[in-house]
């Protein structure tokens, strides 16, 4: 039984006429990476700002480890850490001063601070930035320092907003590994991202939610969400002797949504391809079709994202 660590009930945040978060209810379990996907302006950052006690909700409640985010905000802040979408750094300080002060205020001892800063600086290759004040750094370097703060802090609950924006693929991979380590060491991570690949890697064994116009439209494990797309799986068959009558027989399989035959290629759109793939292959072989290629592919999170956000994007 999974224990919930963040409980959000009918949470709303209005900015004058704009409803940034709209009556949102959500539960996040302890020790999971919960991915929040959504187009720009969906309300992801506002939700994080409320949970991080920066914004006061217009209505509704949220509890973090049983602490109310409004009534017991100081207690909440003892448990959380935030990595912002845009780096929030003291422009005149260098990375060592920024990270050391952050770690100090988060209660790390001098030895622990030095050890963790050294480790993260090496991992994120921050050496180029040594001694330079933050205002002289590139966008990528600033972003690395922003992420480094939370990786050094290792809070019980981490709110991470777009952790790898502006970063090169190599560093992206390193940060993903470090976030996974953070989870494995016991932290709960609420990750807001626009990068489907990022959500795919980090939330693989956990859950994601699609957010739009301040509401959660759909949530679940990445695999479960992919399965919600009717005909989202595709089986591609390549053969020189494809027969039109095969289409009729295959349509009897309930999982199949659509079949398209074009020259030597047949595309079968279906749900849960893994359940019926062997049956399809058997039918093809029974009809004497010489199968040259039989390839299964599942929908990507991009497909899920587009499906659940397209009516809003239109």
């Amino acid at each position, binding site marked *: 039984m999974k224990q919930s660590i963040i409980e959000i009930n009918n949470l709303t*945040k209005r*900015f*004058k006429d704009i409803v940034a978060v709209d009556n949102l209810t959500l539960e996040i379990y302890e020790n999971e990476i919960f991915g929040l996907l959504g187009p720009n302006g969906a309300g992801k950052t506002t939700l994080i*700002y409320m949970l*991080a*006690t*920066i*914004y*006061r909700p217009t209505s509704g409640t949220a509890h973090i480890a049983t602490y109310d985010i409004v009534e017991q*905000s*100081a207690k909440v*802040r*003892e448990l*959380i*850490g*935030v990595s*912002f979408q*845009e780096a*929030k*750094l*003291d*422009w*005149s*300080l260098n990375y060592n*001063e920024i990270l050391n*002060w952050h770690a*100090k*205020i*988060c*209660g790390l001892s001098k030895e622990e601070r030095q050890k963790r800063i050294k480790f993260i600086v090496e991992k994120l290759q921050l050496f180029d930035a040594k001694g330079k004040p933050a205002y002289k750094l590139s966008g990528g370097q600033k972003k690395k320092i922003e992420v480094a703060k939370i990786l050094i802090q290792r809070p019980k609950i981490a709110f991470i907003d777009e952790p790898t924006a502006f970063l090169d693929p190599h560093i992206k991979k390193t940060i993903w590994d470090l976030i996974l380590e953070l989870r494995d060491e016991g932290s709960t991570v609420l990750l807001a991202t626009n990068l489907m690949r990022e959500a795919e890697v980090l939330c693989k064994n956990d859950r994601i939610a699609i957010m739009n116009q301040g509401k959660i439209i759909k949530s679940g494990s990445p695999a479960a969400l992919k399965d919600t797309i009717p005909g989202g799986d595709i089986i591609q068959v390549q053969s020189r002797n494809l027969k039109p009558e095969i289409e009729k027989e295959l349509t009897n399989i309930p999982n199949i949504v659509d079949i398209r035959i074009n020259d030597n290629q047949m595309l079968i759109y279906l749900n849960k391809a893994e359940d019926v793939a062997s049956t399809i292959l058997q039918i093809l072989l029974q009809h004497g079709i010489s199968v040259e290629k039989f390839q299964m592919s599942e929908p990507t999170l991009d497909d899920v994202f587009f499906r659940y956000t397209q009516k809003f994007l239109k």
Partner: protein
Amino acid sequence: MSNFFNIIERDLKRLWNYKIFIFTNTLTYLVQIFVYAFILDFLVSSELDYMRFYAAGVAILTLWSFGMWAAWEIADERSEGVIDYHLTLPLSRTEYILGRMIGGTLRTIVYSIPLFFIFLFVTGMGSFVNLLSIFGLLFLFSFGVTGLGVIIGSFTKEHTKLSFILGLIDAFLIRLSTIYYPEYAMDYWMQFISRINPLTHASDLLRWGLGFPDNSITLYSILFIVIFSLILIGIAIRVYSKRLEGGLAT
């Protein structure tokens, strides 16, 4: 509690952040003390030792200017989002706000002390005991002024608007105080406003501290500085706290 000191430490670490501001303020101060004060003393035909009178007013003005810098700092931190980051740190809002205000006040004091010694060099020490006794009041005054800066910075982060507001406050408060001229040289309505102006009381206290013959310390001036500072500190904590809790982006 230790994080309260960490907040102060941060402000002190950033002591030399605003080098241009410190430089221009120091330069203006020196020019006022070493050039204007002498010229004006020569021009003003009065029994008053105008050079010393003017220098004391300018010293308070510099303290005021350093304290009010908090408005720019808060406004900048709001627009850069640094305050959003601070609000997620493990400390209470009161600890944070008080820490910021004390940090700001200590910086004001650090900036002002060297200038103050120059000032004493020019004007002479006067009564050491008097001078020492008003230091506490001037610290409280700096604290109050920093509070006022915090209040103003909490309401606007636009530089143009902020410039206008601060300019307006300066224009009224400085001209309608005894910073540049004694009360008896003012019209009756100006005298009235001057008596409810913190700059008047702060500069009069400093003049008393310097042993000016015309300036006797009044309980009213002492109480005014104490009440003005405490009220501003209280309002700053309340306003800033409310602004922070409501979400500064709103």
